[in-house]
């Protein structure tokens, strides 16, 4: 209730400033209120922060199917990836792509397990 009154009051003040041609002050007043409302959302306590389950599942599935594809196509991979010359791009690019996918999976997994970096203040 108190915040409602406050908000009404602030809007009225902003309107008064705006009518008087002080647009900057009016915008500032409204901005302050926005910040005040947003703030708690921006810095939630660690306990309530949402854990990246979706990320882990998606990247995990991608990574796993990548490994499955690799293991079931060993013959083809063995031939194509070792031709040399411009085929050098095959293993190098594959390694990078796998790193992104599997790296993202690992990062999400560690977060879910609660292993996070210490916040250095």
């Amino acid at each position: 209730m108190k915040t409602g009154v406050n908000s009404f009051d602030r809007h009225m003040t902003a309107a008064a400033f705006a009518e008087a041609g002080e647009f900057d002050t009016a915008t500032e007043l409204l901005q302050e209120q926005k910040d005040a409302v947003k703030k708690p959302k921006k810095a939630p306590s660690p306990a309530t922060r949402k854990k990246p389950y979706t990320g882990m599942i998606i990247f995990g599935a991608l990574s796993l199917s990548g490994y499955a594809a690799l293991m079931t196509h060993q013959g083809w991979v063995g031939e194509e990836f070792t031709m040399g010359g411009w085929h050098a791009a095959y293993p190098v690019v594959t390694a990078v792509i796998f790193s992104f996918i599997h790296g993202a999976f690992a990062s999400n997994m560690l977060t879910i397990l609660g292993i996070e970096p210490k916040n250095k203040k």
Partner: protein
Amino acid sequence: MKKLFLIIMGVMLILPMVTSAFAGGPPPKDVMKGVFISVDDTARTTEFKKSGSEGTTQLVLGESMVPADIRINKKVMVSLDKHAGENVIKSVDIMFMDLKVSKIVALLIIGLIGGLLSGFIGSGGAFVLTPAMMTLGVPGAIAVASNMCHKFPKAMVGAYKRYKYGQADIKLGLVMAVTAIIGVQIGIQIQKYILNHFGNAGSNLYVSFVFMVVLVFVGGYVLYDAYKLSKGGDETKTSKLALRMQQIKIPPMIHFKVAKITISAWVTIPVGLFTGMLAATIAVGGFIGVPGMIYVCGASAVVASATELIIAFIMGAWGSIQWGLSGLIDIRLTLLILAGSLIGVQLGALGTTYVKDYMIKLVMASTMLIVAVSRGAKIPGYLADLNLVAPVKPQLAHTLAQVSFWALVAALASAALIISVAMFRGMAQAKMEAQTEHIVSHG
């Protein structure tokens, strides 16, 4: 992040110009890949179909080979003995070993621990991965190539994480990497000189000797420093040598923001060159790069080890392209190691946010010293090869080989143990501090 990306792309574009620089030594020559079609036992010849070409070539079996060594219809890597004549086979290695479950599990575990070490001290993994893979039956060249190809994406992920924690100095990393690539070139020239004058055994002895001296000397000093710091020394104190180096005001002076140092390029260049030379010689440049950045340039252990990951990324990417061009990377091995090491490297990077500077030095020093033991165990064999001492008895040779391998395993295991304990202790402490803070602020 955008800036980081642009800088890395820029370096990647410039790198191909340094055409003859290889990280970790150049790919072997006189090697052919393909499949044996048939073998003639009496004539000691075989029909060989080279990969990518239609026709077959006739190859002659070398003196030390028996027809049973030739496996038909299996992709192989053939080393030729050019001294014995045209098309004479020196050795045959099966390129892609069959991956059994036990081997897959072994690769995953080695990858995980190697990654942990890499994320924590900036280097490591490579010195144990190559011998471990060879123990599993991978031909040497393939082991080096697949290892190199796993190293650079791992270093990339580790460098990115530690950059996010505000530990990696990109500028210092780039300066070091560029000079290190030149150092690699010098290192290869020295290697070639020794190989030409003293043969393979001489080269092996030289590599092991450099390895031992550098690791014992540098590792010992880092250990002494870590011990002093753990006894309540000043964490922020810069080494005397670094302070003196920072007094040298010969332009161009470079300021490194994250490392918080301003130092003449004439100091960083030799550090980079030595890192590269060592990378070409013993394949672990990080063991001199990190102490160099700490004790000569004056960076903290946490910044130096994070920056080393940037260097490892650039040099590893360059090396991988070189090895890829000769088609020796077994991507299955690369990706299996990556599966473990990408988790490990992030865990190691996380660990650095919980520990004090001396902990990083301690892990680094203990790893270096145990690895030195591993290499030292090989020296008697090389000395005997050069006829400098009496031949080593088979029993002793076997023991020494075992000591060498298990010392590597011990290096990895002890490092992993120290890191895990330090990290979990740090995490528990941080949690307690947070709780106390919560109670104080909320009553």
